């Protein structure tokens, strides 16, 4: 269960971070978001990552927690990239 939560948190964090970048805003919402919205997305992404780190360390212990988080963030970032690719192909 804790792994599922960590994975969902990581995907959400990277989705926010990706959407705080101009190139991906153009790809996904077809326009550039306001500076304020961009900043909020970036802050949200980083906050989620910090929260996941604390959550992982408290739930699984410092060592295993950090190792698990590293795995979840890597795979989650990969999922976000794949989602961007799939989206780009569909709307080409």
């Amino acid at each position, binding site marked *: 269960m804790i792994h599922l939560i960590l994975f969902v948190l990581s995907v959400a964090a990277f989705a926010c971070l990706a959407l705080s970048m101009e190139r991906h805003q153009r790809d996904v919402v077809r326009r550039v978001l306001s500076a304020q919205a961009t900043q909020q997305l970036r802050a949200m992404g980083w906050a989620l990552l910090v929260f996941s780190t604390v959550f992982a360390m408290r739930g699984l212990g410092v*060592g295993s927690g950090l*190792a*698990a988080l590293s795995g979840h963030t890597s795979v989650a970032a990969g999922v976000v990239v794949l989602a961007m690719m799939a989206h780009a192909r569909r709307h080409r």
Partner: protein
Amino acid sequence: MSQVDRSPKPRGIRQTMSDLHIWVGLLAGWILYAMFLTGTASYFRDELSRYTRPEIATPSTLPDAAAVAQRTVTAIMADTPAASQINLSLPSQRMPWVSAMWASPGGRGRHGFDSGLFDASTGAPLQARDTGGGDFFYAFHFNLHYMPAMWGRWIVGLCAMFMLVAIVSGVITHKKIFADFFTFRWGKGQRSWLDGHAAVSVLGLPFHFMITWSGLVMLAVLYMPWGLAKLPDKRQQAEVISEMRLFLPPQKAAGHPAPLTHVGALVQQAEQRWGTGAAGSVQVQNPGDENARVAVVRAQSSRVSTTPNYLLFDGSDGQLLQIKEHSGVAADTQGVLYGLHLGRFADAALRWLYFIVSLAGTAMVGTGLVLWTVKRRAQLPDPQRPYFGFRLVERLNIATVAGLSVAMAAYLWANRLLPVTMDSRAAWEVHLFFLAWAAMFVHATLRTPKRAWIEQFLLAALLLALLPVLTAMTTSHPLWHALAMGDWAFAGTDLTLLALAALHSLLAWRTWRHAPKAKRARPSAASRNAVPEAGA
């Protein structure tokens, strides 16, 4: 290589690092690819060891560790009364049997050791086909094969060092590591390959760096022996080593027989201290002698670090002699890195994460190797007749990347099909792995590159996809049965093999569909002779 290199203009750090990255990556790439893929498979070493011994039934419950230890030690002592040393790995969820080694004057293996598997519930020896199981991929990953293990470790260490250089130089070369973090551009030839290579590298970067660095640190004493060599005598060196890993000082036998204490009770004591299921193995020195020693070792699944954790008992009266639960800071640092590399502490979910990110690492090396040819193909004076170096790299890439999948699948086919009564059966599984791999090298030289890629990917897909069928036909663990029983060593392996078969079919299909973009004004057949030396 190209004319840019000869220009007098001083080159920036990025260009220099890029060249370093490309050449270091290429030179070590083929061995690194094989290390990465066999290492990735080794995260499921225990599961593969079960998958390759299908005659052993999967028990529904695990018996109490203390009873198992007692039963197995008694069984081995009854069978080999002269045993001077008995080592047991206690059963776990992943490996539900006892794996034991025991030394005796009549022992057939190295240092007089015999080995065997025992039923956890009855203590009876388990009969299974002679196989390397998951241990072959694991050992090949750092010892290679057909050469002394030490040579293999030096070669592997050199490649890991190259890998570390490639990682650092790659990060410096990659200008927009954050701006391009989520970017992949389809159908843009070299650009797409670069994006793909960067994506699998950057997303798994913490893992890739950790695995490479920790791999070197694991064998640090081999690669840098001078610190330890400074110590004046062997006893002190052994003391240092015993801080780093499980190494019990040899205990001389007294020569006076004395009954061995109840080993199960000692395992129970350890479990009270560390928790149920946390006793991983038992070592008995001089069983049946007055000077017997019993060590109960903590399971690697219960902690990250691999530094030694054990309780040492007097084997004749059961008295606790030593509690070893701490090591020095340096040993602890090495132990944590060692543990992170092996991932033995990982639960099922984390093990899958290890596997997936490690596959990304394999893809990183594979895409890097292919990128070398993609980049240079565009500059070939005559794409039909590339120079020798280009052809060599291209063929080696095919046989390494696609060929290794064929070889690994062939190993599992050999496991299923070689006669059970065959002499040196386990060795022949390995020989067939290398024969299949060698065949792929020959095949890659005989076919055009595109055909070779497609045929080898297709062959790998076919071999992988048919393995579950072969398992259903030749064992009592068909996929549907394993799924119904929740027997994940079999069901999980079969499903993973099917997923890998799908991946290889996809790769074959994409290669088949691939049509190189029309190049800007390639030299026509008539004008080929006009540019003979530009590419070499």
